[in-house]
């Protein structure tokens, strides 16, 4: 491997260093833009006791839902969960812990984590169960909560195209949490649909600059649709 070349040859290589008990940040919203093959690699490795930070936890049999099958996840930090029966079961019998976090706060926690901001104040959640145990402060007559940033041992990200230097662009709303997770991983791994040569991507259109990215791996994707809605004939 030379210089800035981030491309690795296999998924196995992409996830080297992931160990039991680590924190993994995952991009994606619902099943859109999830790093589906990197999740499958974690399942294959059998890494356990993970804390996973992701807006959702996939569905039964797909996405992060598959990491529940062998009880690899100890704790989820998410804004909306429970689209899967297994999740509900493990939560109710105490095998799985969940920290529910408002969606915007979750996004900002990752953004802050990647940007070297240890905590920030937000009005979101004031006066709700989310505020329990958190410091508050008044600014301009309004109460705000102190929320701490999140960094991960690993960030797993789904991009559309990357060049060999790890500059990434995302496709449509598959962007969502991906660029935020990408900034906040000690090791950031991006799987993409296409790897292009240096200079092919317009520098002004890069969503995630390569400085945040440690490994790039090429994959093929199922891209399952969670709620298929189409226009009815008029």
């Amino acid at each position, binding site marked *: 491997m030379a210089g800035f070349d981030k491309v690795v040859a296999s998924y196995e290589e992409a996830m080297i260093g992931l160990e039991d008990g680590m924190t993994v940040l995952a991009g994606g*919203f*619902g*099943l*859109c*833009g999830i790093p589906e093959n990197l999740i499958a690699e974690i399942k294959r490795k059998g890494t356990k006791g993970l804390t996973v930070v992701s*807006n959702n936890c996939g569905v039964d049999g797909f996405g992060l839902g598959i990491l529940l099958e062998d009880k690899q996840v100890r704790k989820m930090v*998410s*804004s*909306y*969960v*429970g*689209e899967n029966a297994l999740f*509900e079961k493990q939560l109710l019998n105490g095998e799985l812990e969940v920290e*529910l976090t*408002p*969606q*915007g*706060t*979750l*996004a*900002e926690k*990752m*953004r802050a984590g990647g940007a070297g901001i240890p905590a920030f104040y*937000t*009005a*979101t*959640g*004031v*006066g*709700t*169960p*989310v505020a329990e145990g958190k410091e508050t402060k008044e600014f301009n007559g309004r109460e705000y909560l102190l929320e701490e940033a999140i960094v991960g041992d690993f960030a797993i990200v789904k991009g*559309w195209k990357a060049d060999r230097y790890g500059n990434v662009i995302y*496709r*449509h*709303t*598959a*962007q*969502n*949490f*991906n*660029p*935020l997770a990408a900034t906040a991983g000690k090791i950031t791994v991006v799987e993409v649909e296409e790897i292009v040569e240096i200079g092919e991507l317009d520098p002004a259109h890069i*969503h995630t600059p390569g400085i945040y990215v440690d490994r790039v791996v090429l994959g093929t994707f199922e*891209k*399952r*649709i*969670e*709620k*298929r*809605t*189409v*226009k009815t004939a008029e």
Partner: protein
Amino acid sequence: MSLTREQMAQRVAQELQDGFYVNLGIGIPTLVANYVPNNMDVMLQSENGLLGMGEFPTEETIDADMINAGKQTVTTVKGASIFSSAESFAMIRGGHVDLTVLGAFEVDVNGNIASWMIPNKLIKGMGGAMDLVAGAENIIVTMTHASKDGESKLLSNCSLPLTGKGCIKKVLTDLAWLEIEDGAFVLKERAPGVSVEEIIEKTQGKLIVPDHVPEMAFA
């Protein structure tokens, strides 16, 4: 007669203005998009990271990478933009969205809203609702006035865990349009054929009834 879901959406649509950026929640709020007046441009924000949400795709144009905050496959309108979830909530928290419409289980006279959690039932999470109610200046809550058992959902104090504190000023129920002012609901309009007495009976929180309460008008 109490309002239908479609009539509720129609009444909310009367609050739209040309050039508004609007975030619509799941359920009745989503239907508001069907009643945007023809002479008006409104852009819909979807909190996963889309400004300028269009209609559902066809079988030919459906795309797994193009969804809204309800995880439904959608399209974009001309002039749309797509961005990260942090950018999306910067718009929301920063007060840049002109109108937010969302549902609730309960609201109270202090503008508190409960919409995400019923104790002892499975808690799925708040999603973006807490950010939306904390960030928006202009929020309309759409809900039924009372439960099927006749229990009021317009209370002196919310009984369920809150989604946001002191952030609601406008409520549309199937019976009435109300605004929250100085610790009370103020009855502004009633659904066609619904009596003021029925609204009083089904409102548990303090209710101010002006001398004249007009019926809602539908085009």
